[in-house]
C-alpha cells in the first residue's frame, strides 16, 4: 500500500515538473496573442483561487466576487492615475483595500445562511459595479472607466511592459499564491475552514470561532482578488465597470465548481476552461457560447464533483509540497 502511494506520488511529481516546464518554455514559442491568452488564464486562475477560499474551503456562496476584484483594480487605477503611485507599490495596497472592503461589508452579513448570504454577495457586487458606473466624487470615470494606467516598474530600465513579462509576472504570483494556499489548507486554519463547510454547528462545538473564520476567508479571498485586479488594471492600462459584472462573478463560481471545490489543480483546470474555451472555439463565432453552455451542463452531468475533486487522506497532487516537507520531519 505504502509502496503504491510512493509510485503514484512519484508519477505525480514528474507530471508537476513537466507542467512547470511547459509553462516556462511556452511563451518563447508562440505569438504575443497566445501569450496574452495564457496571461488571462493566469488572471482567472488567481481569481479562481481567491474565490475558492470562500466557496471551496468554507462553502460560502459568494456570487459577488467580481466586486472585490473591482475594488482592487480601481484602487490601482485611481491611485496610479491621480497620485502617480507606482503599480508595484499598489499591489499590496490593492490587496489590503479589497480585504478591508470585504471586512467592512461582510461583518454585518456573516451570520446569514446559504442562499441569503448568496443574494447579499450578489447585491454587494452589483452595488460596487453600479457605484463605479455612477462615478462618485468624479473618481471612477463612469461607464468609460479609468485609463492611462502605468506599467509595473522595478525602477530604471526594469519595466514590465511586454506580453511575456506580464505572463511571467502573473504566473509567478499564481505559483506563490498556490504555495501559500497549500500551506493554509494544511494548517489549522484550512482545517477550521473545512470544518465550517462540513458542519457549522459541530465546528462551533469543536472550538472553532465560526464567524471569525468565515470573515477571515472573505478577507483573504478578497485580498487575492485585489491582487488580480491590480495586475489586470496595469495590463489593460484601463479599467471599466463592465469587466466586473454579475456575469464575471458567475464565471468565477463556475471555475471553482467545474474544477472541484477546494482542489487547487481543479481550480487551474476550471480557469483554463473558462478562459481558453472561448479562444479555442473562436471559429464557431456566434455559436461558441452556445457550445460553452452545453459543455458546462455536460460537465456537471458527468463530473458533478468537478474535473479534479479534492482528495483527502490519500496521495494528492496538491499536498505534494507538504508531503515533501513531512518526509523530512
Amino acid at each position, binding site marked *: 500500500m505504502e509502496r503504491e502511494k510512493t509510485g503514484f506520488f512519484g508519477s505525480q511529481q514528474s507530471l508537476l515538473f513537466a507542467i512547470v516546464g511547459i509553462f516556462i518554455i511556452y511563451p518563447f514559442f508562440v505569438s504575443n496573442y497566445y501569450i496574452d491568452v495564457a496571461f488571462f488564464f493566469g488572471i482567472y486562475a488567481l481569481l479562481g483561487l481567491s474565490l475558492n477560499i470562500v466557496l471551496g474551503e468554507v462553502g460560502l456562496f459568494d456570487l459577488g466576487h467580481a466586486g472585490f476584484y473591482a475594488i482592487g483594480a480601481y484602487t490601482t487605477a485611481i491611485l496610479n492615475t491621480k497620485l502617480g503611485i507606482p503599480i508595484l507599490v499598489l499591489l499590496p495596497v490593492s490587496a489590503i483595500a479589497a480585504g478591508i472592503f470585504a471586512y467592512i461589508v461582510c461583518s454585518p452579513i456573516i451570520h446569514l445562511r446559504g442562499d441569503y448570504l448568496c443574494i447579499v454577495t450578489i447585491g454587494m457586487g452589483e452595488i460596487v459595479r453600479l457605484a463605479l458606473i455612477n462615478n462618485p466624487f468624479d473618481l471612477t470615470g463612469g461607464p468609460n472607466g479609468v485609463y492611462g494606467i502605468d506599467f509595473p516598474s522595478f525602477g530604471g530600465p526594469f519595466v514590465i511592459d511586454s506580453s511575456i513579462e506580464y505572463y511571467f509576472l502573473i504566473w509567478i504570483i499564481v505559483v506563490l499564491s498556490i504555495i*501559500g494556499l497549500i*500551506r*493554509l489548507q*494544511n*494548517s*489549522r*486554519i*484550512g*482545517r*477550521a475552514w*473545512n*470544518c465550517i463547510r*462540513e*458542519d457549522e*454547528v*459541530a*465546528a*462551533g*462545538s*469543536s*472550538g*472553532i*470561532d*465560526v464567524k471569525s473564520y468565515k470573515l*477571515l476567508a472573505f478577507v*483573504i479571498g478578497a485580498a487575492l482578488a485585489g491582487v488580480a485586479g491590480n495586475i489586470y488594471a496595469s495590463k489593460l492600462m484601463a479599467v471599466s465597470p463592465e469587466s466586473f459584472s454579475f456575469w464575471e462573478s458567475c464565471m468565477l463560481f463556475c471555475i471553482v465548481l467545474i474544477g472541484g471545490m477546494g482542489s487547487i489543480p481543479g481550480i487551474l483546470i476550471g480557469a483554463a476552461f473558462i478562459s481558453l474555451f472561448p479562444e479555442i472555439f473562436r471559429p464557431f463565432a456566434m455559436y461558441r457560447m452556445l457550445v460553452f453552455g452545453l459543455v458546462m451542463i455536460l460537465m456537471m452531468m458527468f463530473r458533478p464533483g468537478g474535473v479534479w475533486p479534492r482528495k*483527502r*487522506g*490519500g496521495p494528492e497532487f496538491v499536498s505534494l509540497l507538504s508531503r515533501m*516537507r513531512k518526509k523530512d*520531519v
Partner: protein
Amino acid sequence: MSKGDLHTTPERVLETRGLTKIFGGLIAVNNFDATVKKGEIFSLIGPNGAGKTTVFNVVTGIYKPEAGQVIFGEKDITGRKPHQIVSFGIARTFQNIRLFQNMTCLENIMAGQHCRAKAGVWSSIFSFSAQKKEERRIREISESRIEQVGLERFRDELAKNIPYGSQRMLEIARALATEPMLLVLDEPSSGLNAGETEVLMGFLKELIEKEHLTILLIEHDMNVVMGISDKVAVMDEGKKIAEGNPEEIYNNPRVIEAYLGTEEEA
C-alpha cells in the same frame, strides 16, 4: 465518589441555576437547577421531548437561555458562544452524530485541537518553526486520541465511510481532543449494539479514572445509566422531577409515572 478522585471533598464543576429556555410558546426547559461535581458521571434522563438536549444546548452555548445561569467552575458562562465554551473546557457530542463527513478521521480529531493552538495566517503561510512545531504537536495528540478510541485503522478514511459505532467513538475522540474538563455526551449509546455499548461504558469509566474528567450524559439505555452513573437527574416536560443516585431513581414513583404514565391513564 472514590473513583480515583484525588480530592476528598468533590468540587463543583458545573452548576445551572434557574435555567429556562422558551421556543415560541413552548417552555422547553423550566427553571432547571443541577450541580455536577468533579469526577462524577451525571446522567440526565427523561422521556422524549423532556428538554434534556435543550439543557445541553444551553450549557454548550448553542442556545441562549431566557433566564437562569450556567456556572462552569467559578465562571459564569451563560450566553457565551459555543467555541468560547469549548475553550473554557466543556466539549460535547451530538445525539445524531455530527462529524465532518468529508474529512478524514484524523482530521476530525485534529479539528478538536484547534482551540488549543494559535498559529495565525502569516505563520501558516510562511510555515514558521513555531507553527511547524505546533502542527506536529496537534498531529501527535490526535494520533494518540485515535489510538485511544481504537480507530487507527480508519485514520485516513473519510468520516462518513466508517461504521456507525466507530463514528460515535470518533465524535467522542474529537471532543476529547479539545482537552476538556467536562465531557457532555448526548445519547452516546444510541444505535450501538450490546457489545459496543459495553465497550463504551468501559471507556467512559476509564476516562473518569485516568483523565480525571467529569461527564454529563443524556442516555436512554437504562443499563448504561444504572451501570455507570454516580448521579441521575430526571426531567419531564422541561422540569427536573427527581435527582439522586441510580437506586433512588430506580425506585422513585414519580419517575416511573413520568415514563409509564399513571395507572388511570393507562
